[in-house]
């Protein structure tokens, strides 16, 4: 149970799962940070991205193309949702959340109609084959790749947030919405843009995730729950928080299942409940 090989493997398991969670949760936390919307359709975006990614990957054999396609399709869907639906309830916390629940329902059912109910995975040749071998440790390259992608995107997001004008506008908007309008920026398009970016991230997460676990009806609720837990723990609106939260949950998940399998159901929700009770704004969150 405590041999170095086992520990190393489980650590990598946790990190790679955490990496996927980060890809997923980053979009969700960004949207919340700026727009104060908890997008309950985020899981459905992941699912849609996964299906599209699998279809494109099967057709073209190219993972990059699949990811771009997924981001585009999901981003467009989010664009339509934001412009056509969310716009009407802007600023009203509860109706926004509820609307996204309804959207999730519809997208999930339509995915069932379009893609069918068979579990879908990325084709084996698209997933980076082979494994890293260090002594006795064998670890699939694909999962290491996922960690890499998450790290790159995470750094990119932080850089954009802190170094670019767009990032500055977003940060200003998070602090104080009226200021941005006063600055002359059209807040409406900032919001729409952020929603689309968040959704596109979910779509990419879906495509990449389809290489680690199947996409099938019901996955949208599962991943949404994981994402919610991560951003609650990390703090709503914080990218570093999402990173820390994802790694934490990924590692807890991997090790708890190995060491205390009786608590397998609770490993996810207990930390979330504890954080909500004792530090509701999360580890990195700001007091609203």
């Amino acid at each position: 149970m405590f041999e170095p090989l086992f520990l190393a493997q489980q650590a990598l398991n946790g990190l790679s799962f955490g990496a996927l969670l980060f890809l997923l949760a980053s979009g969700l936390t960004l949207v919340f940070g700026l727009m104060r919307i908890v997008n309950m359709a985020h899981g459905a975006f992941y699912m849609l991205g996964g299906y599209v990614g699998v279809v494109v990957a099967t057709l073209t054999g190219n993972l990059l193309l699949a990811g771009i396609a997924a981001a585009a399709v999901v981003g467009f869907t989010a664009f339509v949702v934001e412009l056509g639906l969310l716009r009407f309830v802007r600023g009203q916390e509860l109706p926004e959340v509820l609307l996204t629940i309804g959207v999730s329902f519809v997208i999930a059912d339509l995915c069932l109609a379009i893609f069918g109910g068979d579990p879908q995975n990325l084709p084996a040749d698209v997933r980076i084959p082979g494994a890293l071998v260090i002594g006795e440790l064998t670890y699939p390259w694909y999962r290491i790749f996922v960690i890499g992608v998450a790290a790159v995107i995470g750094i990119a997001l932080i850089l954009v947030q802190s170094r670019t004008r767009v990032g500055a506008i977003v940060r200003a908007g998070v602090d104080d919405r009226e200021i941005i309008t006063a600055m002359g920026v059209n807040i409406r398009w900032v919001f729409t843009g952020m929603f689309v970016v968040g959704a596109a991230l979910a779509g990419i997460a879906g495509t990449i995730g389809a290489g680690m676990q199947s996409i099938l009806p019901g996955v949208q609720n599962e991943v949404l729950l994981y994402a919610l837990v991560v951003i609650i723990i990390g703090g709503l609106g914080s990218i570093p928080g999402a990173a820390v939260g994802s790694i934490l949950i990924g590692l807890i998940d991997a090790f708890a299942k190995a060491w205390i399998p009786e608590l397998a159901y609770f490993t996810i929700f207990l930390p979330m409940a504890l954080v909500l009770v004792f530090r509701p704004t999360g580890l990195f969150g700001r007091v609203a």
Partner: protein
Amino acid sequence: MTPTKKSSRRIAAAGIGIAAVFALAACAPPGAEPAPEETEAGATGTLKVGFISPTTGNFAVAGQEMVDGWNLYWETNGTEVNGVTIETIVEDDAGNPETSLTKARKLVEQDQVDVIVGPLIANTALAVAEYAASVGIPNLHPVAASDDLTQRNANDLTVRTGSMGGSQANFPGGQWAATDGGYDTAVTLCADYAFGWESCAGFKQGFESEGGEVIQQIWFPNSTTDFSTYVSQIQAAGADLVYVATAGGAPGPNFLNAYLGLGLDQDQLLLNCCAADQGTLRTMGDQIEGLKSISYWAEGRDSEVVTEFVDAYKEFSDGKVPGAYVAGGYVTASLVASVLEENGLVTGEDLVSAITEYTFEDSIFGRVSFDDYNNTIGPVYIREVQKLDDGNLYNVPIATIEDVDQWLGKDPEDALAQPTYSQSFQG
């Protein structure tokens, strides 16, 4: 009007209402209907079938396949048998027990069906079986694999027609593994709920009865999507054989991807029916040729009726090979047809006894008969994934064990006296 006066008026109104309710509750309304009556044997007419299946929701694929199997039989052979017309009404329960029960009620009370087929998921199946028995309607189960359906929750009107209990098929599989299979030690990975417990219990008892040793048992939550942590545990266990039982659907491919991805040996794997069903084969593709599993259904079996069935389904479904869910629906239909052929229109208890007294010599499963608890007795196959001439992957039998019953070599009374299988009790 002041609030107090208004409140007391409302309370008075409520009080009168309640009194009226109690008065009315004493008398039966005209809508109350008696239990459905049984028809006479040998009659002609219509057999109305209520088919409940999760055609939407998380189990949509399995649910739809079960319906397809049933419908395929009637489409190929016609809906009239010996003067009896079979009429089927299909209802979706989305895998939800409350919906299942409501649909069952609708079918019985509103549509006046003679028999209910399905539903699929274990908890929905148990709920509907109980209800159907309480209103005198036979309930046939093409796929549901809960042990207790034909053990502790058995009743005279519930028949498992198209599958086996969770422990039933895996027991001889375990025995095979320890003998012909040549494995000495095993580690098991099973879904952490009733079906998984039963499957693992069956395997463990079979394996250990022939001298094998199960050195570790790992349980995974049914909703697991990432199996990497379990595969690491399996690797650390270091056994000869890895037995895996899932409930079908995504866990099969997810597990295999994690297992193969970590570089482990496919020859050490032995899967249960559902982990290696056609859904998994289609998703995984050629990389799992040679994968071994245990099931009551083998679509690659060299038999005329199987070939006929497979060809018919391939035409029906644009080239797909039928898995266990399709087979379960199909064999149930063929069973009903055979019984109607012999007896004419029978309903109620007569239908059940006609089915359970029947020995189906040449079904797509092989020779199938029934025990006193209305469960199937039939062959179990050790299967291997092979690519056949048409380019598809099939589960082909490499070993057959005939006439397997659900008692795992014990007396029914002794078996029923045991506690139900769980993580802590594995037989």
